[in-house]
C-alpha cells in the first residue's frame, strides 16, 4: 500500500478521500488554489501545497502543477476525485509516465468511455443494450431529421463529448430540429470545444439507474448493485438512493452482469459506474463514468464497502479478494446534495459567505461536507457544498429520516437546495416510488412549501425591531467589545529570515 498520496481535488470529495486515507494510515497531500487557502481539505491534510491562481483553469486543471506538487511532496499516487482531471486520459498517462500510481482506470478506458460515440460502438460490440439510435455523429440538421425519422420521435440530441446535461436537447417534432440542433451544437462547442452531436430515441417515463462496479488489476470484478438517480434537473442530480424501488434481485443481477461486461470490454480497473436509462422493465446503456461519483456514498451505506479504500487497494495492485457472493445489500440509503442555489428561482446559483452552520446528527446520518463558518461561496467553482446521506432499515424510514435531517440542517449566508429536496421528499408520489427523470422539473418549487408564514412574518418584524434597538445602542456598546472580536479575519504569509520561498507561495 502507498505511504503517501496526493488528492488532486477540493471540496467535499477531497475531504472524503483524505479521511479514508488517514484511516488506512496513509499520509495525505492536499493541493489548493489561492481561493481555497482556508478550505477544510487544506487544514485536514498532512501536507498542503499551493497551486497558485484563483480559477480552476489556473490550479486544479493544470496537470503540470499537480505533478510538480506530487514530486515536491513525495506522494506515490494521485487520486483525482471527480471532475477536474478525473476523466482526462492524457493526465492519467502523464501521472503514470512520471512514475506515480494513478488511482483510477487505465487511460485507454477513460478515453473510450469519455467519447459517447466511440463508447456506444464499443458497447454495441460487447453486447450491451443501447437506446435505439445512431452510433455516428450527425453532421447537419437535414441528417438529424433523417435519423430521427428512422429512430422515431421523440429523439434526444446529445453532445458526443458531453456530460452533466450540457449540449442536450429533446426534439418531439421535425419543426423543432433546427433550433435544437443549433443551440445544442453551440453549447457543445462552448463547453467541450467539440460540436459533434448524435441522436437517439427519447424514452418515456425513463428512470436513471446506474450500477457501481469494482475491477481489480487481475481481471476480477464485482458489481455493488444499483443507484436510483432519477430526481434530477437538467441532468444535475439532486436526490439519489440505493436500492431502487423498481429493481428486484433478478433485474439487479441482470444489470450487474451487463455493467461488468461493459467494464471488461475496456479492461477497466478500479471503481466505475455504468449508467442506464430504465423504462418499463427495459434498460439501455447511457454511458460509463470512469471515476468515483458524487453519489457513491449511498452504495457504501447499503453494502458496507468503502469505495475509496477499494480504489486505493486496487491502484496499489492488491486483488479484490472477494467475489460477488460477498456483496450484500442491507437497508436503504438516500443522499441529498446541498448546493448553493436558489431553487425557488429556477436553481440559479447563490453566492455569499457562510454564516450560521448547523449540521443534523443522530443515528444513520452521514455528512460529507466542505462547509465551514466564514467560507466564501463564489461562482468559479462547483456549487455543491455538502452531501447529506441517511441509512435506515427500509425506504420509508429512510425518507422520514432524511426529512427529519433536512429540518435540522441550517446553513445561512447562501441559499441552498435543501428546501427543494424537502419538497420532493414530502410528495406522496416520491414516497410511493412513482417518479421518473422529469419529476423534479415538473415540481413547482416557486410555490412555497412551508406552512408557517404568519410566524415568519412575526419573527421578521421582532428581529428587525431588535436590530433597530441594537443600532441605537451601538455607539456606546462598541467601546465594550473585547479585542478578540473582529469584523474580518486577517491573512498573512510569512517567510523565514533566510529567504527560502514560503511553502504557501506560488509553486
Amino acid at each position, binding site marked *: 500500500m502507498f505511504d503517501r498520496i496526493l488528492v488532486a481535488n477540493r471540496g467535499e470529495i477531497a475531504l472524503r478521500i483524505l479521511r479514508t486515507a488517514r484511516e488506512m494510515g496513509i499520509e495525505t497531500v492536499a493541493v489548493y488554489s489561492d481561493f481555497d487557502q482556508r478550505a477544510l481539505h487544506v487544514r485536514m491534510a498532512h501536507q498542503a501545497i499551493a497551486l497558485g491562481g484563483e480559477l480552476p483553469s489556473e490550479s486544479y486543471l493544470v496537470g503540470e502543477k499537480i505533478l510538480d506538487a506530487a514530486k515536491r511532496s513525495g506522494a506515490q499516487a494521485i487520486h483525482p476525485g471527480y471532475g477536474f482531471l478525473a476523466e482526462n486520459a492524457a493526465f492519467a498517462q502523464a501521472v503514470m509516465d512520471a512514475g506515480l500510481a494513478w488511482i483510477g482506470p487505465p487511460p485507454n478506458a477513460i478515453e473510450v468511455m469519455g467519447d459517447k460515440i466511440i463508447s456506444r460502438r464499443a458497447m454495441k460490440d460487447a453486447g450491451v443494450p443501447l437506446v435505439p439510435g445512431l452510433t455516428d455523429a450527425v453532421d447537419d440538421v437535414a441528417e438529424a431529421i433523417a435519423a430521427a425519422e428512422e429512430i422515431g420521435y421523440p429523439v434526444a440530441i446529445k453532445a458526443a463529448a458531453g456530460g452533466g446535461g450540457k449540449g442536450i436537447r429533446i426534439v418531439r417534432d421535425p419543426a423543432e430540429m433546427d433550433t435544437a440542433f443549433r443551440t445544442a451544437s453551440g453549447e457543445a462547442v462552448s463547453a467541450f470545444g467539440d460540436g459533434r452531436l448524435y441522436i437517439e430515441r427519447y424514452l418515456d417515463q425513463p428512470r436513471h439507474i446506474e450500477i457501481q462496479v469494482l475491477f481489480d488489476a487481475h481481471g476480477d470484478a464485482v458489481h455493488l448493485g444499483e443507484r436510483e438517480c432519477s430526481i434530477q434537473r437538467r441532468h444535475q442530480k439532486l436526490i439519489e438512493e440505493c436500492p431502487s424501488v423498481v429493481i428486484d434481485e433478478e433485474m439487479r443481477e441482470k444489470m450487474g452482469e451487463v455493467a461488468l461486461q461493459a467494464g471488461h470490454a475496456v479492461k477497466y480497473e478500479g471503481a466505475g459506474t455504468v449508467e442506464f436509462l430504465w423504462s418499463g422493465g427495459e434498460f439501455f446503456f447511457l454511458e460509463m463514468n470512469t471515476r468515483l461519483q458524487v453519489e457513491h456514498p449511498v452504495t457504501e451505506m447499503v453494502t458496507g464497502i468503502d469505495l475509496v479504500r477499494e480504489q486505493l487497494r486496487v491502484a496499489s495492485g492488491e486483488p479484490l479478494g472477494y467475489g460477488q457472493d460477498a456483496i450484500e445489500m442491507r437497508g436503504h440509503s438516500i443522499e441529498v446534495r446541498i448546493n448553493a442555489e436558489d431553487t425557488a428561482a429556477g436553481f440559479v446559483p447563490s453566492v455569499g459567505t457562510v454564516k450560521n452552520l448547523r449540521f443534523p446528527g443522530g443515528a444513520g446520518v452521514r455528512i460529507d461536507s466542505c462547509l465551514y463558518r466564514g467560507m466564501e461561496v463564489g461562482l468559479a467553482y462547483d456549487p455543491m457544498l455538502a452531501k447529506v446521506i441517511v441509512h435506515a432499515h427500509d425506504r420509508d424510514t429512510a425518507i422520514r429520516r432524511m426529512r427529519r435531517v433536512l429540518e435540522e440542517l441550517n446553513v445561512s449566508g447562501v441559499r441552498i437546495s435543501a428546501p427543494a429536496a424537502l419538497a420532493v421528499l414530502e410528495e406522496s408520489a416520491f414516497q410511493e416510488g412513482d417518479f421518473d427523470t422529469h419529476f423534479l422539473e415538473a415540481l413547482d418549487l416557486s410555490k412555497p412549501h412551508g406552512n408557517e408564514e404568519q410566524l415568519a*412574518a412575526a419573527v421578521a418584524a421582532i428581529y428587525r425591531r431588535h436590530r433597530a434597538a441594537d443600532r441605537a445602542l451601538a455607539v456606546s456598546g462598541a467601546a465594550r467589545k473585547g479585542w478578540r472580536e473582529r469584523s474580518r479575519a486577517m491573512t498573512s504569509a510569512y517567510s523565514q529570515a533566510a529567504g527560502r520561498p514560503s511553502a504557501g507561495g506560488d509553486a
Partner: protein
Amino acid sequence: MKYFVKVNGHDHEVVLTERLGELLVEVDGEPMDIVYEEVDSLGQVLAITGEGAAFGVSIEGDSQRAGITIAGHFYDIEIEDERERAAHAAARAAGAGGGSVKSVMPGVVVSLLVAEGDEVEEGQPLLVLEAMKMQNEIVAPVAGAVVRIHASEGEAVSAGAKLVDLKAAEEA
C-alpha cells in the same frame, strides 16, 4: 409600529406595540402569543407560539429583505414599516412607465440577440446568459421596444444587474 411583511410573495401585517415593558404582537389583525428568544448573534431564534408549538428559526438579511428558515423550509421576506411603505409608493409612482430586464443570477453574457430600437414580442429571446456553465436564454417579459442595452457580449454581470430596458408596447 406596523410592518408590512411579504412572505413568499404573500402580504401580511404585523403590529408590534410595547405596553408596560411587554411587546404585544398582532399578525393580520389577530393577537399572537409568542415567546421569542435569540440564541446567538447569527440569527438563531427560538419561537414558541400559542399553547407551546416550538420552532427553531434561522433568520438572516438586512432591514428590508430577509430569509427565514423554519424546519428546513425557506421563507423569503420583504419588510417595510409604515414610513418606508409611503416612501416606496411615492418612488414607484414617479418611476412608472419603464421596465428593466435584470439578471436573476451572476453570469456572463454569451450573445446579444437584439439591438437598441428593436421591437420584440413577449417571450422573444433577448440574450444568452451563461452561468455555472449552462446557457440560458433571457426572454422579453412583455412585447415592446428595446430602449437600451446595458450589457455587452462577453461581459460578466452580477445578480440583479440591469441587462435590457424595455418600453412596453401598450406604453408606446
